[in-house]
């Protein structure tokens, strides 16, 4: 028997889910919570195996509650149940320690298999999301090879890199671009950080290598 806690702030949805879950013999809903704080408290009291957690909840939201539950009760498995299908929500949920993510509209079909998977120690992602997450990953991956560090520099940073490499002082660069020396310093720091370089000489060598200066 899987002991389950249901954390969902909307009564009507919670009731719908409850009736859905009650019909399943292998699952026992040991408690309900209306917000994140109550969910954490009830986990401590009721020691469920799995928590089905909504994200948007008043007070403590679902992600924060998940983080706290995983910190104090690492063995408890959290299944996020959300209307959101985007990569960011999924990513943040997984980062918070959730082991599964089910889109609400697919709940009736997927909820049992997801709960079962989590109880067994597996992870579960709604097929709808898996598709979206993978697409995003592919999109990013396609862009990756083009990206060398130079691409990270903004046009203004490239302009300043060239002026530094040409041997101009911070003051001269500021005067040339009508910006304060302090702003030039900030740009220089960003350039060094992006290129992972640490001295003006390294910047100059890099500029020569890139063909910015002869």
């Amino acid at each position: 028997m899987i002991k389950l806690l249901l954390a969902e702030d909307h009564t009507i949805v919670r009731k719908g889910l409850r009736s859905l879950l009650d019909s399943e013999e292998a699952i026992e809903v040991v408690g309900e919570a209306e917000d994140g704080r109550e969910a954490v408290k009830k986990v401590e009291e009721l020691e469920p195996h799995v928590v089905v957690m909504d994200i948007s909840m008043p007070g403590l939201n679902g992600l924060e509650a998940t983080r706290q539950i995983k910190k104090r009760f690492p063995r408890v498995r959290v299944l996020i149940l959300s209307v959101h299908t985007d990569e960011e929500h999924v990513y943040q949920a997984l980062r918070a320690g959730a082991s599964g993510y089910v889109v609400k509209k697919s709940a009736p079909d997927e909820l049992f298999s997801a709960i079962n998977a989590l109880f067994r120690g597996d992870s579960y992602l709604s097929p709808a999301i898996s598709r979206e997450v993978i697409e995003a990953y592919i999109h990013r991956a396609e862009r990756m090879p083009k990206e060398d560090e130079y691409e990270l520099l903004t046009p203004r940073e490239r302009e300043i890199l060239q002026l530094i490499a040409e041997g101009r002082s911070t003051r001269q660069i500021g005067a040339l671009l009508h910006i304060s020396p302090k702003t030039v310093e900030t740009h220089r720091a960003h350039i060094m950080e992006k290129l992972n370089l640490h001295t003006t000489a390294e910047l100059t060598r890099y500029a020569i290598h890139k063909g910015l200066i002869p």
Partner: protein
Amino acid sequence: MEDEKKTRKQLLNELVQLRKRVRELENSVQGKDGSEEALRWYLDTQEVINSIMELSLKDLSLDVMLTQAIERLVAIHRFAFESMGGIFLVDDDPETLVLKASKHLPSSLHESCTKIPFGTCVCGRAALSREIQFDSLISDRHEIRYDGITPHGHYCVPIELRGEVLGVLLVYVKEGHIRDSREEEFLRAVSHTLAGIIYRKKMEETLRLSETRLAEAQRIAHLGNWDWDIVNNRLWWSDEIYRIFGLKPREFGANYEAFLRSVHPDDVAFVEEKVNAALRDKKPYSVSHRIVLPDGSERFVHGQARLIFNKDGKAIRMIGTVQDITELRKAEEALHESESELRHLYSRLISAQEEERKRISMELHDEMGQALTSILINLSAIHKGMASQTPPRVKERLAEARLQAEKTLDQMRDLSLRLWPSLLDDLGLVPALRWYVNGYTRRLDIEVQLSTVGLEDRLSPEVEVVLYRIVQEALTNIAKHAGAGRVWIRLERTNKGVTASIEDDGRGFDEKKALGPRAAEAGVGIMGIRERVASLGGTLRIESSPGHGTRLSVKIPL
């Protein structure tokens, strides 16, 4: 007739020659007692010249003075002058004589000789040649004739000073009178005296006119000038300053301390410091302060001054102006007030709009969305619990209802997110931005480089939403106008606050001509952003130049 005229002329000529001879004889006789005669001549003529000079000391207008001068001149009995004469002056028109004063001249002459060009008639010839012109009778040179002209001769004496012809002195003599060198000498002396007087009078009038104009200008501008003799601590004020300060010259102590007594008590120390600084640093003085009028009312003035030093470099005088800027200040304040009110209203409008959007979005998500979710769940439960013998038609209808509910839920979620990025509440700024940026890149094929530094912890909701809207607005503008292929966004949390910069590689615009069509379109959005940043105590800056992209940077203190 012709013959008669000629005869008359010949006769007159003969008469003149005769008289000349008589004069010569008289002179040779008088020569024996010459010294006494010369002294009397000197005294008589000097008396006339003195009386003319006296006139110049009286407070008379130039015209009156000239009239009295010609009266005194023609009244002299020593010479054979008819008691008729006049004075012409060169007035506004160059090279033209204007009759200014006359004695016993016929009224018809006044009409004919009002204006005489240089070179015309005998007087005009005197002005042009700068030499005394004498005619013993009305000759051919007397081009101007007037009704009732009586036979006469005359001296026309140019009045000149430093090579400039100021006018002509005209004195009538009896017809047939002989030119006399002593008369000429006397008339020349009178003419010199008149020249000096006319010059001085004209100067005085010019000065008076410019003083009147200055006073008028000062009254219009509510600006007065002052002159402080530092060594003797004497302060001179123009009339307008007295008017501004509501004082009468008698009530004013006319020194620095008296001025300070008019300054508003709260501003005295400040004004004194400014004056001392000017004296110490030998720099111009410029200060705005309040003054208190005798009736207790307050006014704002702006004073400006410079110092005058002696040859040792010591400040001995301070000369300056003071302007009543009360109305200007009031208008400025009113403008400033209405401007800040407008800004306040605008930022209230924006936050009200934001709140409304958020409320509707939440309602969509919470109420409708959850209701739909629950319908979906129930439909699924029904579907599951259906007996196998349920007619396929019912099953199909049920599946269709589920599909429709799902679609509606999706649409509602999109609408809700467009109104309010709930990711901001749930996940925080950085994931929300990443989500927005990814969608933006997918939709528009504009690469966005998002980098964040030190933003692991959540910021306050107000700051997060403003930063999110800034990025959103900037990216929208870039998509609409910039024609950019890449955008770099950098958000950094420092110990002072948060900075955000959004830079693109698009076509940019000319900052100096920033009132172009792009600014007009982008303006409202940017104005909104600017207000929201300002309401958090931050600053927004936009830099751009054609062909060099655009950089928007924001600093918000935390």
